[in-house]
């Protein structure tokens, strides 16, 4: 069920009304849990079983980890949780990828042996909820938290529908305490929750789907060769699309949760205002980057084992982070490029030139922001392209300025598309830069209520008049 669907609209009205009418908190939670399962089942009912399996195994493992003082037993149950969750992820997401690569290896080795490619349907959101339940067992193992007292609270934490299929990846330590005492959304929370929902939908439906997606498809999925301008238009469009799509979804999720009285973690903080790649990863998909930092990077040793080991740990984290996004070497390349840029950044920061005052001033910061953004755009090519050859074509075109002035391109974009991409790129960079140390809430404090009404009404108009196109699932649903 997509947030921008009529069926979700009906579903949410029912959930919201019942949530407001129920006075018994336990009943309310049980109702939210059942509705969350229904929400998930809307894609494919049998996959709810996988959700149950993950929920029950980690509940059981965390309880046993907490009860025992023996390191061996604690490790055993932690491993059980790891193996079951990562095993499920490996099977559903990577089995086909593994088989494909093994076949490639056999062929390269001259063998005629062939593994038949399994036809496995990827359960929606599996990457998100497995990481979410893993964080629960990790936190109990590290004694950062006690296991949830109530299975209902824990199950609701795993399954809560606003964040179930595409994040944010919520930590149990943040969500479970919210379940323990009765809560009822105030009118301010409901009002602001709906504002966030509308902003999220506007980002997704209007900007990502309606304006950017056709341009991205023409450049990335077309068969022609782009020139310099066409390639950049496509890549900038994708940079905007993926931000608006994913941040849009997260904003919707946070808004919906707020209308039901729950707070979810911020997932984006104006990432295109990032000053360097380290800063980018504190602003982009924050729930995933913090998960990777806390449970992978730190476990590998973080930056505590010397420069070389720090770089290796960074690279491993980013490569696996890339692979998390999808079973394709292109995602690994994307992750690897981010790892490489992070390493280069660390090396540059050691140089004397990096210590100059200029870089701390506005102009210097803007220069770094623009350089970071350009580098991020190059990495997005590998994230979006369907083949390595297409990615290379686009990267080469992005670097070949001369091609923009010759007749080499066999791909064509109308002038209006160039204008739209140009305007949106400038707008997004300016907005992100101005908002980089602020939050939406801070900005909303300063806008008169009547102006907010006007903005909301135009956004809703834009959403309704952009809904009619081909249904495009949120980009991160494929993860």
């Amino acid at each position, binding site marked *: 069920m997509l947030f921008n669907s009529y*069926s979700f609209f009906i579903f949410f009205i029912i959930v919201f009304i019942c949530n407001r009418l129920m006075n018994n908190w336990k009943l309310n939670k049980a109702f939210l849990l059942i509705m969350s399962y229904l929400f998930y089942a809307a894609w*494919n*009912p049998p996959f709810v079983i996988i959700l149950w399996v993950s929920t029950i195994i980690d509940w059981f493992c965390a309880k046993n980890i907490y009860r025992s003082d023996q390191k061996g037993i604690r490790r055993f149950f932690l491993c059980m949780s790891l193996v079951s969750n990562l095993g499920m992820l490996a099977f559903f997401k990577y089995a086909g990828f593994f088989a494909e690569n093994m076949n490639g290896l056999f062929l390269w080795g001259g063998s005629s042996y062939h593994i038949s490619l399994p036809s496995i349907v990827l359960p929606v959101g599996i990457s998100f909820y497995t990481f979410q339940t893993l964080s629960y067992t990790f936190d109990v193992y590290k004694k950062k938290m006690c296991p949830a007292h109530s299975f209902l609270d824990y199950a609701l934490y795993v399954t809560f529908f606003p964040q179930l299929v595409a994040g944010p990846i919520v930590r149990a330590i943040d969500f479970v305490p919210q379940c323990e005492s009765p809560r009822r959304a105030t009118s*301010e929370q409901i009002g602001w929750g709906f504002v966030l929902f509308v902003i999220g939908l506007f980002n997704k439906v209007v900007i990502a789907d309606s304006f950017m997606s056709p341009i991205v498809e023409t450049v990335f999925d077309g068969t022609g060769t782009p020139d310099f301008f066409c390639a950049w238009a496509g890549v900038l469009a994708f940079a905007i699309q993926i931000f608006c799509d994913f941040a849009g979804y997260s904003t919707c999720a946070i808004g919906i949760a707020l209308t039901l009285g729950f707070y979810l973690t911020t997932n984006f903080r104006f990432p295109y205002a990032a000053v360097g790649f380290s800063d980018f990863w504190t602003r982009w998909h924050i729930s995933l980057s913090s998960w990777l930092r806390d449970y992978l990077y730190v476990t590998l040793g973080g930056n505590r084992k010397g420069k070389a080991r720090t770089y290796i740990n960074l690279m491993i984290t980013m490569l696996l982070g890339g692979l998390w996004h999808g079973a394709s070497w292109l995602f690994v390349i994307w992750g690897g490029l981010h790892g490489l840029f992070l390493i280069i950044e660390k090396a540059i920061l050691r140089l004397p030139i990096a210590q100059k005052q200029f870089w701390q001033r506005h102009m210097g910061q803007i220069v770094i922001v623009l350089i970071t953004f350009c580098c991020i755009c190059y990495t997005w090519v590998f994230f979006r392209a369907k083949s390595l050859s297409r990615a290379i074509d686009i990267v080469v075109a992005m670097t070949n300025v001369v091609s923009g002035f010759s007749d080499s391109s066999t791909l064509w974009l109308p002038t209006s598309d160039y204008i739209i991409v140009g305007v949106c790129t400038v707008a997004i960079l300016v907005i992100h830069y101005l908002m980089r140390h602020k939050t939406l809430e801070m900005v909303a*404090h300063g806008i008169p209520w*009547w102006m907010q*009404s006007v903005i909301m*009404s135009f956004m809703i*108009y834009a959403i309704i008049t952009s809904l*009619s196109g081909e249904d495009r699932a949120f980009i991160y649903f494929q993860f």
Partner: protein
Amino acid sequence: MPLSTFNSNLHVPYVPYKKMWLVAGILCVVLLGSMEAYWRVRGFYPSVTDDKALWAYYRDQVYATQTYKKIVVIGYSRAQLGIVPEVLNSELKGYKTVHLTVDGHSPIETLEHLARDIRFNGVVLCDISLESCIEERNDATGQKEWCDYYDTYWSNYGKIEKGVNTRIKAELQERLNILSSYLMLKRQITQWNSLKPTYLETRSDRYRPAHYYTRMSEKELEDHKRMRIEKRKEDLREYTEKGFGDSTHYKYEASHRLGSAVALIQRRGGKVIFLKMPVTGETGVIEDTMYPRSQFWDTLESVTGAETIHFMDYPQLRGFICPDTSHLDVKDAKVYTFALAKIIKSIIDISVSREKVNYDS
């Protein structure tokens, strides 16, 4: 202790939200209502987005119920514009029409998809273009994308939610211009000056009434007609250069693909009728040149075992003028469908009597 990114101290902005949302709601309704009225005054008509979800929704409706058997129309735009479902329904009592046509894409994949579906035993009315049976002229995948979409997203219980969403979307789009894909916000911004009502609309049942005479100027119609003829001339040039029209190959394709699909459906009690929709003027002449009837159409019945209805074989189906040489205007479509329904009825009745005779004997 909570994460540093966690907003447990989230300060929800203090705004008089009830007032804010009330005013926003009123403004929104006024804006949407004004735009809806504006588009109507300018002569726009609501139209449904004919996407794969809508096709899949109707693909799921092909099975007989206790009240109705189904007559499934597959084929190209000629059938999608020329066959009016309610006229067929009213003339063929006990039958309900389902449109699975897709413009510009060969229906052979859909016919095979229905043939493989053991639950389907209705009537298939197939607007077939003989080019589909000639490999070099076949469009790459035909309607395979639509069939694959159905198999991937619609063949499990997940279709319940998708079906609800698709139905609501289609019903709303059929009534409101503001939801029409032709009037999407992006088009409003980038093509405001060139937006004008189109002669074609799509209904929620996927039928597409074409208003050539009432919504097109004479010049527009003439240009449209010329464009279509030019396209067909280009096809003829390609045909001549590459030497298409090997009737041997066509017969192979027809008997193996079409014949197998027909046999499977008819063995289950269904019926397949191949249909040649009216085509007039230069387009008709070009098509007859490329695919002479005696080599192609006339062999279809014997090669596949299906019934055929060629518009030239029935006086009541001849005599229609296609405004663009290829498609019927909405008024003619109704008359044509009425006449076609009677012919189909006689074919179905004969089949039923034959089965009855076979059963009795």
